[in-house]
């Protein structure tokens, strides 16, 4: 609790949200990015901290790969994604000399960098800091939960896809949250259904309903399902007009609904 007396660079950050999932490739980074955009849409100032050290995806999704992180008096300056500087991002991706270089690090080194990310990034004033994590329940997760504990994060958003294999891993992630005392804001089901652009038939590519069932089973809120949208995938891939084009995606209503639930959460987190 000593650290709480000296909040340092996170002093201006009002709410911290962790995005977790036991399973890889379910869309943690996508949801983190989309959530940040939806919160920005609601007029908030948002920061994204990407602690997936071995596979940072967010710089590409926001098309800021190759940008450099600068040093200032109070620490590292995050990369601003838009002109208005309403979304800032910090990722190991900005620290690599070559984009294809592998970060072959064992736990202790990853922990040290995460500590640095938490203490040394000059976020400035933020309404929300979204922390995107790698899959699993290991070093990075323990490090990030430990180092953020003094700043009492709002909680964790747990992302799953509907199929059983993913749900199984996510059940373990919920156990992790319970064990480390991290509140679960809710479960988000990603890639729920796929609407065929040719005939409008909706196929549940990764089956259906797993997220809601999981949330009920674990007694945590279910925040919503986000449909598969190839256009969105494409724009995430290319980062093309993503911020402006986002409100037209079928995923947008689902996302703003989830963002709204999180906005409603906030006062509770403060008290």
């Amino acid at each position, binding site marked *: 609790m000593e650290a709480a007396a000296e909040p340092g660079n996170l002093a201006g950050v009002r709410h911290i949200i962790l995005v977790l999932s*036991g*399973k*890889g*490739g*379910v869309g943690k980074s996508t949801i983190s990015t989309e959530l940040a955009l939806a919160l920005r849409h609601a007029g908030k100032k948002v920061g994204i901290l990407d602690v997936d050290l*071995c*596979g940072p*995806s967010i710089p*590409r*999704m926001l098309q800021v790969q190759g940008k450099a992180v600068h040093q200032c008096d109070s620490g590292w300056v995050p990369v601003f994604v838009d002109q208005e500087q309403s979304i800032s991002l910090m990722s190991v991706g900005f620290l690599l000399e070559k*984009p*294809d*270089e*592998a*970060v*072959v*690090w*064992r*736990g202790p*080194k*990853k*922990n*040290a960098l995460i500590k640095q990310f938490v203490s040394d990034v000059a976020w400035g004033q933020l309404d929300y800091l979204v922390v995107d994590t*790698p*899959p*699993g*329940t*290991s*070093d990075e*997760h*323990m490090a990030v939960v430990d180092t953020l504990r003094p700043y009492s994060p709002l909680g964790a958003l747990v992302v799953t*896809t*509907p*199929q*059983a*294999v*993913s749900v*199984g*891993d996510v*059940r*373990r*992630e*919920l*156990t992790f949250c319970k*064990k*480390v005392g991290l509140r679960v804001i809710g479960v988000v089901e990603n890639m729920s259904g*796929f609407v*065929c652009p*040719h*005939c409008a*038939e909706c*196929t*549940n*590519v990764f*089956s259906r309903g797993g997220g809601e069932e999981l949330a009920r089973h674990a007694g945590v809120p279910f925040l919503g399902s986000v449909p*598969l949208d*190839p256009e969105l*995938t494409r724009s*995430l*891939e290319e980062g093309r007009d993503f911020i402006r084009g986002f409100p037209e995606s079928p995923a947008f209503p689902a996302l703003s609904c989830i963002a709204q639930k999180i906005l409603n959460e906030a006062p509770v987190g403060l008290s």
Partner: protein
Amino acid sequence: MEEVPHDCPGVGSAQAGRGASCQGCPNQGLCASGAGAAPDPAIEEIKEKMKTVKHKILVLSGKGGVGKSTFSAHLAHGLAEDENTQVALLDIDICGPSIPKIMGLEGEQVHQSGSGWSPVFLEDNLGVMSVGFLLSSPDDAVIWRGPKKNGMIKQFLRDVDWGEVDYLIVDTPPGTSDEHLSAVQYLAAAHIDGAVIITTPQEVSLQDVRKEISFCHKVKLPVIGVVENMSGFICPKCQKETQIFPPTTGGAEVMCHDLKVPLLGKVPLDPRIGIRFRLKAGYRISLEDSRGRCPACPVYREARRSPPCTRLLSVRVATKDSLFWLKHRIHQPP
């Protein structure tokens, strides 16, 4: 500070404890004594143990959720089609073991015998080992840091009674960290045939996979080839194909060409695979079942709505193709 000195020469190097940056490091004495450089005795033990294992294949991907475990399962089943081939499947995804569920072996337990842990046998010639078999409940989270995960991997390689095995397939978690380094290091003396790398077509996945290939180069692990999974989705109603995960940068094909690694095959996306997992039937895909009918079809609504399982068949064909190239690559003289 937990961080090692900036210019630490590494405990294994000749400069350990002697470099300029070692001055003042609390571990200088230990490093200089050479104790840190001594190889783990387990490496030799594992080499001994692995003498009965002919081929060792790692299934890797920088990205999560691209189908490493699914493909590992395909591969194990495919190789085990031949009754005379002994196949072992080892899941070293310690924090997110999916293999028990995919193989339909959830809830199975590992037994202890005089010669070590016995793998769980799905068929006479297909043994499976996963941390999932050691957990008491499916909700149990394995919240372990690196060293503990490494210990588990060491045990899996050294203490499991694998017996005579033709192919050992090692399914890994995403990334390039503890589990991967440990598997490669522990198996170093025993010789690994190489790694099969799984990706999905989109750039967000490929950028992580390039890192994985760079990892393979760094640790001198040969790349057997790349498999592109979820390569396209055919609508079960109108039969038109959509790229759910669009290959905006040319997909695995262009990446393989650029990095000069072989592409083993492309496996399409089939919703039925997910259905079968959910039914806990396990993924007992038969590569030889050429009638093209999915056993789940007559029973389950989702499957019945769609035409005879041409897609599942194409998954089979694609997997079989990949398998052919993989065997070809392993068995060709270096």
